């Protein structure tokens, strides 16, 4: 047992190296992940933007947090896909029959998800800068934004892990990300919740995406964040814990 535990970091780096190679050998996945959110951004800024009353003079600034969350929500479907493919092929069984630290098999995918989504987020922020996004936020605020986005990615990655570990077909693997993307549309991501009918507004104001979007928006525009950041963190951590438990249960069922 001791010998197995001792190798956690070396096993981890092998697993991480493997799935990072997968990503860099299929750069098209990063493009696919970023293209839809960038499309939304162009559409909302240049087509609908004039008609939307967001209360800010720079609509890109308003839009960006929600777009980043949509990008992450669609990015994690590749994590589910890669996990699913590993389960399908024999490689999982090979790893499991070897004297390695088993937890690194899943954590390798999770870390890779964090890194690849980080890249997608960076690409989208670059495009947003070109489109006129500006932020007065200081370094600390940017760190806080990065932290929230990383936690959000972690939460969704464990949801993706449930899908990847329990799906029966490839089509089933990515379906789970659509409801999450849809959640962004019924939130404060594109328009202020005040403009919504009461029932919809009540839903929008009490779901995770709104809290996270509002927290990031406040941080990026150098406004006081208030309670939003704590609600956002609570959502992220809560979802991570619940999804982790279910993902582990799905994992145990497979081994």
């Amino acid at each position, binding site marked *: 047992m001791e010998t197995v535990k001792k190798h956690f970091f070396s096993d981890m780096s092998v697993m991480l190296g493997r799935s990072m190679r997968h990503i860099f050998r*299929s750069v098209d996945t990063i493009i696919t992940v970023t293209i839809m959110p960038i499309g939304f951004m162009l559409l909302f800024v240049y087509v609908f933007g004039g008609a939307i009353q967001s209360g800010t003079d720079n609509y890109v600034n308003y839009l960006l947090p929600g777009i980043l969350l949509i990008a992450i929500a669609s990015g994690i479907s590749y994590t589910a896909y890669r996990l699913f493919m590993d389960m399908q092929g*024999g490689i999982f069984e090979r790893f499991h029959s*070897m*004297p390695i630290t088993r937890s690194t098999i899943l954590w390798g995918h999770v870390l890779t998800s964090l890194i690849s989504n980080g890249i997608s987020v960076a690409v989208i922020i670059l495009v947003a800068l070109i489109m006129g996004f500006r932020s007065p936020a200081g370094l600390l605020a940017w760190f806080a934004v990065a932290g929230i986005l990383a936690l959000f990615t972690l939460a969704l990655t464990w949801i993706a892990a449930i899908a990847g570990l329990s799906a029966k077909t490839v089509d089933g693997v990515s379906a789970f990300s659509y409801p999450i993307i849809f959640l962004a549309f019924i939130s404060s991501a594109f328009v202020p919740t005040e403009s919504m009918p009461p029932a919809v507004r009540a839903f929008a104001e009490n779901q995770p995406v709104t809290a996270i979007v509002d927290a990031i928006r406040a941080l990026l525009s150098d406004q006081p964040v208030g309670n939003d950041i704590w609600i956002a963190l609570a959502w992220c951590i809560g979802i991570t814990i619940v999804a982790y438990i279910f993902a582990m249960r799905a994992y145990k069922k497979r081994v």
Partner: protein
Amino acid sequence: MEKAIQVKGLQKSFKQLHVLNGVDFEVEQGSVFALLGSNGAGKTTIVKILTTLLKQDGGTAVVNGFDVALKPDNVRQSISLTGQFAAVDEILTGLENLIMIAKLRHLKNPGVVTDNLLKRFGLTDAADRRVSTYSGGMHRRLDIAMSLVGTPELIFLDEPTNGLDPEARIEVWKIVKELADSGTTVFLTTQYLEEAEQLADQIAILHKGRIIANGTLAELKKLIPPAKVEYVEKQPTLEEIFLAVIGKKEEK
């Protein structure tokens, strides 16, 4: 002689389906053991239990002196598995696949080990190509090569020649023979009776959840009714033994 594998009363069911109903057998260290059975007989199920991928419902299995249910970590230290379906990473190159396994086995000099294996399996030229471009035979060779990284004492090959053309099959046979010569214990499953005949020191036939025959080729040949041997001029093939044994069981 030491036993590499000791299996007693092994049972396994998937819901209503009783796949293994008390399987018993032993494998000598350094020998080649062939487990024979038709589709769905439960060969892969036995391999998965012995390689700690699946838990049995009853009975015991001891591999290299360690109980698979109680000491799975120790079992994994001393075995290596080439599963029924290729366990290679298609996106990596052949060399990267080998290096990955060498690192996971914490070898001191992965480069030397992998170079030797590439040479031995005729994959040196294809080493830097992605595995997705490999032929079926190359896939299988790489798959087996990956199982030899770190020279495990006991290697499991689950239908190693499944889906290969005759030429590639003979290549794999050569590899198994070399392994046996070097003293490695080989546990292999197959549906091809000829394969068991070619490679194995000891052959066990799995049928309806039990081992219905177990022994050397010569011992199994004795199971054929003697009257038949007199009529047949050539040596009986394993196929005939298999059918004869199954027929006998069914008559009871």
